[in-house]
């Protein structure tokens, strides 16, 4: 008996030592870093990029969330026909060309073809002429209310998401490049502060999962680095497009915290900071995720 107990004790000690030797960072690197080949070779989107300078010491490389999804989901994004998000891109383009409001204008009346929006998504969010940080939704609503004299769209409404999707896909393949210096710096600092702040009863910061544990399991799925270059995302779980602020809200809710509102200044700042972590990864237009 006593020898067995001795053995058990020794084993317990060994197990304890093993746990102690596990580093606090336990991320799992993706097995491959294949590019996303769209429509059989029409466009190749790299899924890995060197980390931006401000992430020195945190990440060496940044990865698209696509790498952490399963093969069937990855394949859906590789074909524009099978990508369910493209339905909403089509609807957004229809909306782009639809006249609305007292001024009798559509988006196309001033901006002409939606291809003129190439590059916009890669730089969003950004500081506007008045010095405020604006997301793409703010720019759309500003155009709608001031130029079209139409009603503003709700942040998370289908029409808004369709428009942001249609505009985003114009920049597909361009590297994310949000400005974080100059006027943007205070917003960026605020966003960084939020990224490392623990929220909710579970006391989780964005960094706890997406920096310290990417690639590991969370429930039945893998954590990504939390990059936003694929937004708006077609999420299979919801069978709908999901905006960045909606996703932030969902994450904070899951920490059992009181969340910020979609379209709040806090989420704009967080959007800027998270986007800057992905500077260098290509805009994925409408990506497909679980």
């Amino acid at each position, binding site marked *: 008996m006593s020898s067995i107990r001795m053995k058990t004790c020794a084993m317990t000690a060994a197990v304890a030592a093993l746990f102690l030797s596990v580093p606090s960072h336990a991320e799992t690197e993706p097995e491959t870093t294949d590019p996303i080949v769209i429509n059989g070779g029409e466009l190749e989107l790299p899924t890995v990029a060197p980390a931006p300078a401000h992430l020195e010491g945190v990440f060496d490389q940044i990865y698209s969330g696509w790498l952490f999804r399963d093969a069937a989901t990855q394949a859906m994004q590789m074909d524009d*026909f*099978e990508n*369910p998000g*493209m*339905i909403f891109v*089509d*609807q957004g383009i229809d909306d782009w060309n639809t006249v609305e409001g007292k001024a009798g204008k559509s988006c196309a009346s001033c901006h002409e073809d939606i291809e003129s929006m190439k590059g916009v998504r890669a730089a969003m969010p950004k500081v506007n002429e008045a010095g405020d940080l604006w997301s793409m939704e703010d720019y759309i609503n500003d155009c709608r209310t001031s130029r079209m004299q139409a009603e503003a769209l709700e942040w998370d409404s*289908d029409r808004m998401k369709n428009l942001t999707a249609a505009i985003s896909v114009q920049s597909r393949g361009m590297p994310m490049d949000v400005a974080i210096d100059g006027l943007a710096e205070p917003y960026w600092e605020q966003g960084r502060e939020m990224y490392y702040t623990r929220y909710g009863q579970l006391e989780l910061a964005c960094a706890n999962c997406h920096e310290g544990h990417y690639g590991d399991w969370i429930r039945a799925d893998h954590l990504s680095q939390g990059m936003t270059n694929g937004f708006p995302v077609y999420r299979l779980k919801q*069978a709908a497009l999901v905006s960045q602020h909606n996703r932030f809200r969902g994450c904070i809710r899951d920490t059992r915290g009181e969340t910020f509102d979609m379209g709040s200044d806090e989420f704009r700042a967080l959007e800027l900071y998270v986007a800057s972590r992905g500077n260098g990864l290509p805009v994925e237009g409408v990506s497909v995720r679980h």
Partner: protein
Amino acid sequence: MADNVKPRVRVPKTAKAGEVITIKTLISHQMESGQRKDQDGNVIPRSIINHFSVSFNGTPVLDVKMEPAISTNPYFEFEVAVPESGEFLFTWKDDDGSVYEDRQSIEIS
């Protein structure tokens, strides 16, 4: 009334006579099953696409009776042998009586 219903179809532009081609179709539709309730406990009425058919130069190719368990944005992919140049006609029928159509022609080289 279903909103934002938009059919999408992908048919190759050309094929060889008798070649088996792959056709993909997708229609955006909420496919409300009639089983769900809203926040006040009222049943949300059923609103689905209940029928999908395809014909080629008037000859039936595919005929599908669709049921409420089919998920949102129904996607069909199927193979068909094309004997001659002609036109595919795709038809979706909605519970509300709407009929959505799409036509795609194919050349036999």
